[in-house]
């Protein structure tokens, strides 16, 4: 959509964000020094496996953490505003109005005892200066826009009367009803069938073209990332390990984790003899390894990786990676390519 962000000012800028959870077993450093920017009108992808902190990052930006969670450090600047210093009542006017969120499981995100219309109208009435009649009109229009057939009738239905895809459309209608500048989409299609996923992704693209909002797409699915995002943050164990535009990332991954992930997925468009094996499991968030957090699973790890944490550095223009041994990865890729062509 737009790759030319040189002279633009970011809509959202997150610097060294740290979010800790105080649990009975100890402190979980779910997000530990995460930085990125989102520019107006672009889609930023956050990709990683479960427990890497991608959802917590979104919740921290919206300040929706529960009482156990605490933002322990960092800066969040949204539209010239310091989010962390904003009082709670101001945050309430921000949420739903300036930034909105759609969730993975639309059935649990929608309230089962209110009609879809009531829930969309609630957001409109709260944030816009309109009467109930007008709000209902706006809600109906929104439902039509997200492709729900017969919106005049559907507006009075309860969430359980809608199918999974329709519910997700209703969620999108609700989140876009106040024309937000930033939309968080947390695994919006993971619970849906592929044919419905295709519909929803298509819809989100259309709506973005129309409204021009920025989207943060949080997902574990590299296919969705490749399909809809402009730039990508790869997260592992609460850290950003790689940060680049989507074409660069897929063509020239510079972190062993991103590279491993891409080779671990079976592909629909090509045959793979054997899938790449990232050995081991995601480390326990109560007890992340010293140094580079990926060192326990990394094929290139050395002693340095076990003691010193690699910083997120610009390896090429606008391509950031946090690894001590980018050269080793490059050699390995070269070796594999030569092996293939030979």
């Amino acid at each position, binding site marked *: 959509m737009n790759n030319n962000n040189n002279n633009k000012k970011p809509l959202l800028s997150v610097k060294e964000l740290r979010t800790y959870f105080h649990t009975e077993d100890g402190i979980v450093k779910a997000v530990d020094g995460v930085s990125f920017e989102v520019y107006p009108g672009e889609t930023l992808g956050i990709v990683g496996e479960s427990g890497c902190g991608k959802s917590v990052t979104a919740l921290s930006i919206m300040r929706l953490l529960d009482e156990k969670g605490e933002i322990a450090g960092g800066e969040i600047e949204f539209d010239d505003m310091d989010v962390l210093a904003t009082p709670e009542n101001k945050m309430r006017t921000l949420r739903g109005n300036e930034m909105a969120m759609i969730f993975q499981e639309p059935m649990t995100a929608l309230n089962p005892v209110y009609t879809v219309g009531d829930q969309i109208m609630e957001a409109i009435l709260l944030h816009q200066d309109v009467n109930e009649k007008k709000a209902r009109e706006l809600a109906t229009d929104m439902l039509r826009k997200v492709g729900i057939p017969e919106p005049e009738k559907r507006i009075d239905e309860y969430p359980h009367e809608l199918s999974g895809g329709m519910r997700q459309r209703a969620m999108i209608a609700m989140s876009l009803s106040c024309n937000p500048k930033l939309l968080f989409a947390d695994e919006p299609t993971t619970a849906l069938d592929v*044919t419905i996923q295709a519909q929803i992704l298509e819809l989100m693209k259309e709506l973005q073209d129309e409204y021009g909002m920025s989207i943060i797409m949080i997902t574990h699915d590299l296919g969705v990332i490749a399909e809809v995002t402009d730039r990508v943050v790869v997260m592992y164990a609460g850290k950003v390990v790689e940060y680049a535009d989507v074409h660069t990332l*897929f063509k020239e991954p510079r972190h062993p984790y991103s590279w491993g992930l891409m080779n671990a*997925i079976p592909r629909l468009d090509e045959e793979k003899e054997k899938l790449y094996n990232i050995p081991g499991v995601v480390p326990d968030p109560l007890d992340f390894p010293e140094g580079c957090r990926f060192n326990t699973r990394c094929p290139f790890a050395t002693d340095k990786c076990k003691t010193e944490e690699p910083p997120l550095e610009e390896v090429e223009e606008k391509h950031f990676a946090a690894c001590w041994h980018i050269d080793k990865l490059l050699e390995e890729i070269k070796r594999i390519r030569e092996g293939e062509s030979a």
Partner: protein
Amino acid sequence: MTEDKRTELKMGRDRSKPLLQVENLVKYFPVRAGVFRRVVDYVKAVDDVSFEIYPRETLGLVGESGCGKTTVGMTLLRLHETTSGRIIIEGKDTTYYFMPFFRARKYLKETYVNRFNDLKEKAGSVNSAIESLENEFDKKIARQYFEKHNGSSSDFMKEMMSKREEKRKAFRREAQIIFQDPYSSLNPRMRVKNIIAEGAIIHKLATRKEALKKAADLLKTVGLSSEHMSRFPHEFSGGQRQRIGIARALVLNPDIIVADEAVSALDVSIQAQVLNILNDLQERFGLTFLFIAHDLAVIRHVSDRIAVMYLGKIVELASKDDIFAKPLHPYTVSLMSAIPIPDPEKKSKRIVLKGDVPSPINPPSGCRFHTRCPIAKEICSKEEPPLVEMEDGHKVACHFAGEMKR
């Protein structure tokens, strides 16, 4: 039979003869309503599905939620009773093994005795009656009925109905399952060693000591170590639990394993590990898989042949290479195009299907896909297309097969 002998036997099977045949399988679930819980309707979960699986191959069964793919697996293993249809494993009709006594008798009578008697009457002689049967398996049973038992239905029934308990046990030994959810499929109060060894002990394949030793070996085979033996399931991650589930399925050295969404609950890096293990095990133990999944990319990776299901029916069935090189059914084409490809340079031209999957209680008339099909014509809503072989081994159920291009 010892371990190695069983593996040897499995390895030695002729790959051109099917190990498992499913014929016209139907499974309806009653929908009850009202004070008296009367049956008001049926969910037609699986509606006339036929396929074969050959020794040591993996048949991938793919479709969206609610298409009946899991029900096929469950019915195959008789975790659900069949509504109708026949399931033949290794030249034995296993359909009636788990039926209640009188229903089993009724099934045998209708499927074999009455049919054979009618045929004999029509054809005039026993030999021509047998000759007129098309199915090799039917011929075998007919010979058994006419020649061994001289057409005496009581003798025939007696033989078929005898030792059903043993037959059931043998069936359970030969067919195993790996479940989707590694959290709910392991008993939280049992230690890993007992979870794995239990099957071998129940089937008296080994003494307790031997069974535990075998469990330790299997744990190593699936990439865990024997020090995990005395732990409980909650001490493991999802991927490790799935490995325990695999080890449990392997302890009886089964012929057929139904893997029902075995990797869909796992993270991508763990998914790759488990898929690789399944692949290795298949070669090592000569396993035959029915691999059920909604993820077409996973299915492509593991399968030799692929069956695509939509709303209780198989719409396309072909070898992996054929189906990907030349999908013939519009649903298959749309399904393939709907999946995002993890490569931003290859942005695919999408065929976005309209609407949702219709209800299996009241499926559309004619071709069940016609309400969403981009190339549907009038005939599609009236006549149901049969599953026919279009090319060698490539079956498809569509009036306009191959007309939709990617």
